[in-house]
C-alpha cells in the first residue's frame, strides 16, 4: 500500500503542492487529471524524490518516512519501490532497448547479466518489441521508445509505476500503442498512478480519478461519478473545457 500524508512542495515562494493526502491500494489504477501547472507532475516526482518535498509523510510498502528527515538510504529505498515513466521517454541513449530494460536489474538489483538479459527479453516480448532488442533509442519511433520506457519501469517490479504524461510528447499516430500497453498492464492489476490528459483512458481504465487544482486534491472518485456527476464547480469547469476538446470521450 502507498500512502501520502500532507505532502507539501514549494518552489521559492510558490506552493506547488499544498497538503496532498492520497492512498493507493495494491493493484489500484489511479488517474490524476487537472489543469496544467497544478502540481500533478510534481506530486509524482515527489514520490520518488526527484523533487525533495518540503513536508509530509510517505509510506511505500514497508518504507515509512517523514520526507523532511529522509536519508540517502530512504531516498534510494523509495526509488527502488517506485518506477517512473517519463513524458519524454528519457531512455539511456548509449544503451540498446534490451540494455535499457536490463540496466536497473544489473546495476541496482545486482542480477547476473545473463539473468537480467533473459528477463529483459521476456519484457520485450510482452511490450511487442522482441525484434528491437538490439536497437538503440535513436533508431526507434516515439511510440517504441515510450514502450521501452514502460518496459524499463516494468523490470523494476516496483510497488507502483508512476506515469508522468506518458503520451503527451508522442505524435498522434503513436499514442494508441502506448495506451494499449498501459491498458494491458492495468488488466494485470499493476498498481499505477497516471498523470494524463487522455480522458478516454481515465474513463475506461481508472479505478479512481483524482482531480487536482492549485496544488490540492479537489475531488476524487470512480470515473463514472467524477465524469458524469462531478460535485465541485472547478471539476465541472475543467471537464467541460477538456471534453469539448476531446469530443470522442463525452457521453
Amino acid at each position, binding site marked *: 500500500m502507498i500512502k501520502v500524508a500532507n505532502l507539501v512542495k514549494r518552489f521559492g515562494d510558490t506552493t506547488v503542492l499544498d497538503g496532498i493526502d492520497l492512498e493507493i491500494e495494491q493493484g489500484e489504477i489511479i488517474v490524476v487529471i487537472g489543469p496544467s501547472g497544478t502540481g500533478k507532475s510534481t506530486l509524482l516526482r515527489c514520490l520518488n524524490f526527484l523533487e525533495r518535498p518540503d513536508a509530509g509523510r510517505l509510506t511505500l510498502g514497508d518504507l515509512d518516512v517523514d520526507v523532511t528527515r529522509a536519508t540517502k538510504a530512504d531516498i534510494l529505498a523509495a*526509488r527502488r519501490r517506485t518506477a517512473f515513466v*517519463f513524458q519524454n521517454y528519457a531512455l539511456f541513449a548509449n544503451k540498446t532497448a534490451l540494455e535499457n530494460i536490463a540496466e536497473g536489474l544489473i546495476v541496482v538489483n545486482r542480477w547476473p547479466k545473463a539473468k537480467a538479459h533473459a528477463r529483459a527479453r521476456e519484457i520485450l516480448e510482452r511490450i511487442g518489441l522482441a525484434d528491437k532488442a538490439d536497437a538503440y533509442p535513436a533508431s526507434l519511433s516515439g511510440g517504441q521508445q515510450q514502450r521501452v520506457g514502460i518496459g524499463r519501469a516494468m523490470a523494476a517490479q516496483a510497488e507502483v509505476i508512476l506515469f508522468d504524461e506518458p503520451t503527451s510528447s508522442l505524435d498522434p499516430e503513436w499514442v494508441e500503442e502506448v495506451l494499449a500497453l498501459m491498458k494491458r498492464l492495468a488488466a494485470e492489476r499493476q498498481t499505477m498512478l497516471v498523470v494524463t490528459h487522455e480522458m478516454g483512458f481515465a474513463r475506461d481504465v481508472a479505478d479512481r480519478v483524482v482531480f487536482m487544482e492549485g496544488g490540492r486534491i479537489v475531488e476524487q472518485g470512480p470515473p463514472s461519478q467524477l465524469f458524469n456527476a462531478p460535485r465541485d464547480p472547478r471539476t465541472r469547469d475543467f471537464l467541460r473545457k477538456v471534453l469539448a476538446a476531446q469530443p470522442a470521450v463525452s457521453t
Partner: protein
Amino acid sequence: MSVLDFDYMLGLVPILLSYLPLTLAMAAAGMVLALVLACGLAVIRVLGIPGLNGATLLFISFFRGTPLLVQLFLFYYGLPQVLAFLTQIDGITATIMGLTLHFAAYMAESIRAAIVGVDRSQTEAALSIGMTNGQLMRRIVLPQATRVAVPTLMNYFIDMIKATSLAFTLGVTELMGATQKEAAGSFLYFEAFITVAVIYWGIVELLAWCQRRLEWRLNEAYRR
C-alpha cells in the same frame, strides 16, 4: 644542381626519427597528466564546489590567457629563481609541466561541457530506477560525455604533439631541436625544415585517421 637536395633529405629522415620517441613521450606524458587534471577541474566546475570553483576558474583563465612559450620560460628560467627545490628542473620536465597545465586548462572546459551536455532527463531516469550518483556517472553520463569530448580531446593531443617543438627553446634536443642542429651543420635549412614538417604532418595525419575510426565506433548508438 637541383632545387632540393633529396639525398640529404632522405638521409636526414632516420636521424630525425630517432628523436621522435622523445617528442611522443613528452606529448603522451603531458596528455595523460593533463587529462587527469582536466577531469578533476571539470568535476569541480560541474559540481560547483565552493572555494575550489573560484580557484579553478582563475587557473583556467591564466593558463588559457597566456602563451605556452611564456609559461615554459616561466617554469624553466623563472621558477627556479624563487623556488629553490626547482633548481634541478630539466627542460623535459619543464616542458611536460607546461604542456600539462596549459592543455588541462583547455580540456577542462571541453570535458565540463560534455558532461553538462548529457540530457538531464537521462540522469533523472537513472536516479528513478535507484542508481546512486556514482553508478549514474559511470554507466550513463561519462560514456556519453566521452563520445562528445573525444574529438576535441584528440585535437588537443594533436596540438600538443606540435607544441612539444617548443621544448627546443629550453635546450631539449627533440625532433625540432635535432633538426635545428642538423640544419646548422649542413646549412641546408630549407631541406631540413621541410623534412621535419613532413614528419610532423605524417604523425598528425596518422592520428587523425585513428580519431576518425574511434569516432565511428563511439557513434554506434547514434546511427539510424
